[in-house]
């Protein structure tokens, strides 16, 4: 058991809780840096997806998990970042300038959408962002001089200061760099007055207001910052996917991004990364299972002489091959997480950690949620 002994208030706002914590992160960093040396190229590529999704996760976590504003249209900002970057690159703008302009553009769009959002809450905000993303998607497909419309837009590999980041490993490090940057920036914002204001707004707008938090300013900052990070993710997304089409940035992608932060665990940056691992790795895992389940079940049935096991394996394999099954599996997991573990993967991780650190003394009631009776969000 480890007791963090508090000797000053500044301890609460440190970047890392203590030395032991920090050394764990150093170990993790070393592991992630060395990973491409041992992994095959395909898995390095998949891990790059994890990093890109993690940046989107951090972006949404700031907005949804920390400020309590729900956006059903964040794919639009991802698309704005991706298309702007691709457009600038196409016109010969250097990579760094292009990426910076794309991020700035996404931030500006975030501000513009954020302004009406100041007057809205809950479901109205969700539908307003949804409307915005539908309009933006239409813009992507109609503004052909910039986006090439429905025929799509090829994105070249990244070239920064004459160095090519086209290879899987090089791009892996590029994405890793930006993820660490995003996490570091966000973590620093969160432990500063800005972050505390966001959390106050999430927990109670009226209480925050009476503590002197300017709702309009902090909500706008949250929206703009989140949109800017999404734009950054879009820049990397554009290179990774290599071909942009308007039907990538649909509401389904927005929903997938929300799923990411929920499954990961709302209200923690760890959750954004956990969620990214889940969202990026589930499709390849399903693809692997699709082929390996029937084969392994057949092996088992041949070994044990039980034919039905082989048929069962075939049935699972066929089921997984049907179109749209992946979305259904995501849906089932989403439903189960919300019903059984509203704090997501990070919440489960915290519970496991506390179980071991307080070993014989663990109490389930520590995490018991208080049930409120008819907590109305309806006005009047």
């Amino acid at each position, binding site marked *: 058991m480890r007791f963090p002994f508090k000797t000053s208030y500044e301890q609460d706002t440190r970047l890392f809780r203590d030395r032991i914590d920090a050394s764990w992160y150093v170990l993790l960093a070393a592991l992630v840096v060395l990973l491409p040396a041992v992994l095959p190229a395909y898995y390095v590529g998949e891990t790059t997806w994890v990093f890109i999704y993690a940046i989107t996760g951090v972006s949404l976590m700031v907005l949804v998990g920390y400020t309590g504003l*729900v956006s059903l249209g964040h794919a639009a900002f991802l698309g704005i970042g991706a298309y702007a970057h691709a457009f600038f690159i196409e016109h010969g703008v250097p990579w760094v300038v292009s990426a910076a302009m794309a991020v700035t553009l996404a931030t500006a769009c975030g501000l513009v959408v954020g302004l009406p959002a100041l*007057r809205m809450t*809950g479901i109205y905000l969700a*539908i307003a962002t949804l*409307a915005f993303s539908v309009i933006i998607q*239409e813009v992507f497909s109609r503004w052909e001089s910039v986006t090439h419309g429905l025929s799509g837009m090829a994105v070249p590999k990244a070239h920064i200061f004459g160095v090519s980041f086209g290879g899987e490993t090089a791009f892996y490090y590029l994405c890793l760099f930006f993820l660490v940057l995003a996490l570091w920036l966000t973590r620093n914002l969160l432990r500063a007055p800005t972050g505390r204001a966001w959390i106050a707004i999430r927990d109670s707008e009226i209480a925050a207001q009476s503590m002197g938090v300017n709702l309009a300013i902090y909500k706008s900052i949250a929206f703009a910052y989140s949109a800017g990070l999404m734009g950054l993710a879009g820049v990397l997304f554009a290179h990774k996917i290599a071909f942009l089409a308007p039907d990538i940035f649909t509401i389904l992608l927005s*929903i997938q991004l929300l*799923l990411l932060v929920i499954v990961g665990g709302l209200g923690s940056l760890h959750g954004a990364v956990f969620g990214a691992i889940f969202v990026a790795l589930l499709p390849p895992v399903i693809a692997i299972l699709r082929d390996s389940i029937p084969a392994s079940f057949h092996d088992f049935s041949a070994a044990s002489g039980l034919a039905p096991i082989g048929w069962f394996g075939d049935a699972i394999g066929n089921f997984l091959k049907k179109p749209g099954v992946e979305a259904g599996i995501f849906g089932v997991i989403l439903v189960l997480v919300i019903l059984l573990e509203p704090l997501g993967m990070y919440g489960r991780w915290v519970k496991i950690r506390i179980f071991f650190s307080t070993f014989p003394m663990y109490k389930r009631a520590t995490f018991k949620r208080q049930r409120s009776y008819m907590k109305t969000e309806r006005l009047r």
Partner: protein
Amino acid sequence: MTDRARPSYWHGEKAASDRPTGSRGRKLDIFLQLTLNGLAVGCIYGLVALGFVLIYKATELVNFAQGDLLMLGAFVCYMAVVWWGLDYWLSFLIAVLAVAAFGALLDAVLLRRVIGQPQFAVVMLTIGLGAVFRTFASVTWGSEIYTLPTPFGGVTRIAGVTISHQYLSIIVGTLILCSVLYGFFNHTRIGVAMQATSQNQLAAYYMGIPVKRIFSMIWAISAGVATAAGVLLAPVTLIDINMGLAVALKAFAAAVLGGFGSIPGALVGGIVIGLIELYAGATLPDGFKDTAPYIVLLVMLVVRPQGLFGTPGRKKV
């Protein structure tokens, strides 16, 4: 995702824009034609929005799976008509009852547990359920596009305006459904009990109203209304697993436009969205047909965030 991916299915608008627009009378005809079709489309949006609002008023849950319930309803009706060879009206009834029962079950098993959790969690839960329903439909019925045979094939011409019976059936069906619901909510014991529950849950408990059962019934009604909308819509848009999504998004806009929580607002909002969609499709350049409703919605939310029929107010601490 948007309707662009699907064939342009509100064919009224195409027929109207193909005609030469010479004389003044012609223009009026086209206008009437568009209005009629817009009304029909708007009725569907209104019905789905009505489902949103009913559930929201009673339980404060926002059901994003409403469109997928509509899709399930249309598929059940299709299955009854084409696979089992039943009569259209009987199939209609079967579909409504089956999906209504399913809605009640959904409430009893899943959604009752999340009441009191943040609204956002519930929205995501229903989005997840919607994805599950779509997968279920694609595994059970396949992901092709199906046509539902209906008794409303013909057209009537009145003073130059062609009235397709399919569109007419939607308008008439909506009128009947709305008057039935109106009568139910105002003149039956259960209906009044439902109103009481949605006004104050705790007081309703004290009055001896079985609140949980009332919630299940509201889910059943809302799912049944969605099914009715789906079956009425089926001949126009054809049936496929994504038919609900496009409708639900616009219906959602309709519900917000009308002020979430107002039943007449939902219907009016639906009709407004339907009319805007068709007028924009006929008069504005390509691409505005799908986005015009959302542009209007955004403007509306900026100017009057509580919707057309909503009441402004502040949350209490």
